[in-house]
């Protein structure tokens, strides 16, 4: 038993019982097997009541739908039960620490959800007359103001839909600015440790990608960067703090060298959470940086999205930012949606999305900003960094960190501690699931072997961090003492055991199909 009175020895009894009999239903207590929705429908059943439109002559030009769609009919209680049962098969930040490095899985304040659902925000159309949406434009302008102040950068594009979209916005502005001075250039330098979206974005922007290796301290190798910088380089794309969880301590030199070569300095701001309120990227010489509002500013990840990725710009790039943008004059807001042909000051590279950006995320972000204030945001960064360093301190004797010194908001380990144990990074991480945790990010970044990247965030209590440490130290001890049965094939206690990803990719089944009927089979 631990001090909360919970048994800490694996529930041998329970496990034994689990294996000892099959249930008649396939369910196991509170864990329900749930068929796909297409296997539950019945003809003539519906979960909404709609009036009968009656007979009328249509105006579809003869292009009516003739065939069945194939959707199942369910009532509301069935639909609720289906999705609630499914929801229970998910891990979530509301259930426990979600230490996915680089993802900033922090608490999502519920006030933000309430505010985003106010009809004055949720039920407003993007193409209503501007006179009827002054509050919405003011929200965009306020978020823009906060982001500019926090980053110390004067320009902004609010429309990008996520981080990767923000990268595209940033690089396109860079390319437009370079072409404007008759100097398109051909390539973008990206550190080896970069997130996959960085090279993918550079390629989408028509650039060749050249990788810059990390030095022994886990930072951009400045010497090599300097060698590679020449008049063919359009931009250097650096994540800071980087994906090893380290602050690029030579960032000012990187910026200077980049600028000296006539290139622009793009910063991937996915890890802004570590420095918000304490360091302004504008002071580091950054020319463009996206900010993942779904990371630093707590908008929920929603099982994959939506997010938002506004981009801040230095003065030189600001005129090239994506359309649209909001203008404020004496509390009167206007929306610039098109390039004014004559306007010299706007050289925007164009539009990146329909409408004006992720308003639902802006409302949540502003609510978060007002809740924290300048003082609270600074504490966010400090507690995030404190939590990660605390984990590092509590783990480093059994899990040597990949690099020396303090980390920022996340701690990077590699698989050295597993050498000679028969346990892989994957097995080790999956065993965490049996301990009740979501695994950390694994095999990323690519600069160390078998990476394990842990980002606790500032919204974990000390008890939560301590419990996570207990689990990790216990697993290390198990692995190193030869007690490795629980690793091979882990997890054992999750709604599903390890899934066959190879089979899934070999013959992909991407949709449900009705089972072949006996007649059809004949």
């Amino acid at each position, binding site marked *: 038993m631990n001090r909360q009175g919970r048994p800490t020895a694996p529930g041998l009894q329970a496990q034994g019982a689990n294996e000892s009999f099959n249930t008649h239903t396939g369910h196991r207590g509170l864990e329900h097997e749930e068929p796909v929705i297409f296997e539950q429908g019945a003809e003539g059943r*519906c*979960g*909404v009541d709609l009036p009968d*439109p*009656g007979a009328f002559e249509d*105006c579809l*030009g003869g*292009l009516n*739908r003739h065939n069945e*769609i194939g*959707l199942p*009919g369910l009532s509301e209680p069935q639909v609720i039960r289906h*999705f609630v049962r499914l929801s229970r*098969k998910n891990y*979530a930040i*509301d*259930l426990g620490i979600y230490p996915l490095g680089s993802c900033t899985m922090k608490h*999502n304040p519920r006030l933000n959800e309430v505010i985003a659902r106010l009809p004055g925000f*949720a039920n407003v*159309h*993007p*193409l209503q*007359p501007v006179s009827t949406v002054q509050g919405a434009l003011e929200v965009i302008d306020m978020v823009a103001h906060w982001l500019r102040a926090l980053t110390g950068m004067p320009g902004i594009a609010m429309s990008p839909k*996520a981080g990767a*979209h923000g990268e595209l916005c940033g690089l396109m502005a860079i*390319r437009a600015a370079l072409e404007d001075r008759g100097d398109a250039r051909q390539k973008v330098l990206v550190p080896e440790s970069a*997130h*996959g979206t960085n090279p993918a974005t550079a390629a989408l922007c028509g650039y060749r990608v050249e990788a810059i290796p990390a030095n022994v301290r886990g930072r951009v190798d400045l010497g090599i960067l300097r060698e590679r910088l020449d008049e063919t380089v359009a931009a250097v794309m650096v994540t800071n703090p980087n994906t090893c969880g380290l*602050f690029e*301590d030579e960032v000012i030199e990187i910026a200077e060298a980049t600028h000296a070569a006539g290139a622009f300095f793009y910063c991937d701001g996915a890890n802004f959470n570590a420095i918000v309120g*304490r360091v302004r990227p504008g002071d580091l010489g950054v020319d463009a940086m996206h900010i*993942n509002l779904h990371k630093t500013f707590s908008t929920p*990840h*929603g*099982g*994959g999205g*939506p997010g938002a990725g506004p981009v801040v710009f230095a003065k030189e790039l600001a005129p090239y930012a994506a359309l649209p943008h909001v203008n404020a004059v004496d509390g009167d807001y206007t929306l610039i949606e098109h390039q004014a042909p004559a306007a010299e000051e706007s050289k925007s590279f*164009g539009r*990146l*999305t*329909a*409408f004006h950006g*992720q308003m639902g995320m802006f*409302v949540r972000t502003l*609510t978060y900003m007002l*809740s*924290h204030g300048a003082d609270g945001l600074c504490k966010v960064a400090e*507690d995030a*960094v404190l939590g990660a360093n605390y984990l590092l*301190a509590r783990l480093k004797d059994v899990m040597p960190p990949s690099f020396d*010194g*303090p980390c920022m908001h996340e701690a990077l380990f590699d698989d050295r501690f597993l050498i000679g144990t028969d346990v892989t990074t994957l097995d080790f991480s999956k065993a965490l699931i049996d301990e009740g945790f*979501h695994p950390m990010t694994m095999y990323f970044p690519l600069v160390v072997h078998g990476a394990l990247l842990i980002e606790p965030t500032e919204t974990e209590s000390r008890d939560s961090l301590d419990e996570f440490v207990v689990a990790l130290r216990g697993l290390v001890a198990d692995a190193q003492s030869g007690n490795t049965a629980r690793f091979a094939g882990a*997890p054992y206690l999750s*709604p*599903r055991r*390890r899934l066959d990803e190879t089979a899934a*990719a070999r013959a992909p089944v*991407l*949709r449900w199909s009705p089972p072949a009927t006996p007649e059809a089979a004949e």
Partner: protein
Amino acid sequence: MRYLPLTDGDRTSMLAEIGVDSIDDLYADVPPSVRLDGLIDLPLHQGELEVERAMKQLAAKNLEAGAAPFFVGAGAYRHHIPAAVDHLIQRSEFLTAYTPYQPEISQGTLQCLFEYQTQVALLTGTEVANASMYDGSTACAEAVLMARRVTRRKNVVVSGGLHPHYREVTKTTLRFTEGKLTPCPPAPDGVEDLAGLIDGETACVVVQTPDLFGNIRDLQPLAAAAQAAGALLIAVFTEAMSLGALMPPGEMGADIVVGEGQSFGNGLNFGGPNLGLFATRQLYQRQMPGRLCGETVDADGRRGYVLTLSTREQHIRREKATSNICTNAGLCALAFCIHMALLGEDGLKRIAQLNHKAAIDLAGKLQPVPGVEVLNKTYFNEFTIRVDGRADRIVESMAGQGVLGGVPLSRLCPDREELADLILVAATECTTDLEMDQLAAALGKAVAS
């Protein structure tokens, strides 16, 4: 600070455990010259009550769709969202989960995605769909990039009936790549010779139905022409609800079908977030952008789901990936999936009919208004009217009368003087007879003045 669990006591003891004196020591790698010594000049933290008050004041400055007769569409539509949808998407396990990288503890999200992909394929009349894109416009641009990969050709023909935002986003996305984009001018009657623009270099033709002006397009001849020339047909829709009433684009021969799915389960939200639907032939599934969820089995042989074909994606393929997308529109896809589950076969068909009927009734009420002409012969729930006068001024004047009366084409195509007297007007299942009468009255007044 209510969201920060660490106490000052915790902080002190944690610093001691780390072996440093102060938090500043943990920022030792930040060059001293750029460390801020004070707070940034922004307001200080506030309690829930104060924040709620401030945000409510901002919300009150907007005229929300439910507070006025409302006819605005052009790519975002007001529909009734059943209460169950928002309840379910606020379940912590859906709302606060990350992308399902660990399938053993993400079967909830994954099975929903599998169901969503199936629904999208069924609705669009295609074989496979992905797990969502940011919105219809970016899905459109990604479809063009995919068509280029599939055909290994570069040029793109774009219908004048494609939503101007979609056209612009596609143009921006292609801006720094090789190849020619040939846009047709917008034609309010929906008549244009796209087939005549296809040649041996054409990768794809992009056409929207219902088109920008609301006209319903028969894609079959164009699909045949594209196919004959070795090009792909990309069919776009901005109103997914129309798929409940219309012959699906896949059935008409489209190779890639993309569009905006906001109408199902997702509110207007001033235009974001929204939901990009993306569907195609199975033959091309390995060329698709974005996440894909696939069925498999676990170590015990039980059915389960995983993200699959990830060797297309940026985290594996980096600069050779099919797209740079990472975060997508997961929760919006879930909302779509739940709304679709509630509707089912009968509900979807019926709600589509209700939308169509509302538009027919509205057209009937607007046609007699002096100075107003309904242009469309075909439409679903949105059509174009020509007014005597400048459309933007008339829409503004109606707003002054408390009526949100539609979208002036000049808002979308400011450089097209010939469209300056056109307004797009949409009606949905939410539109009442009374509101239609109010629009007719406001429009009559605005045109006359």
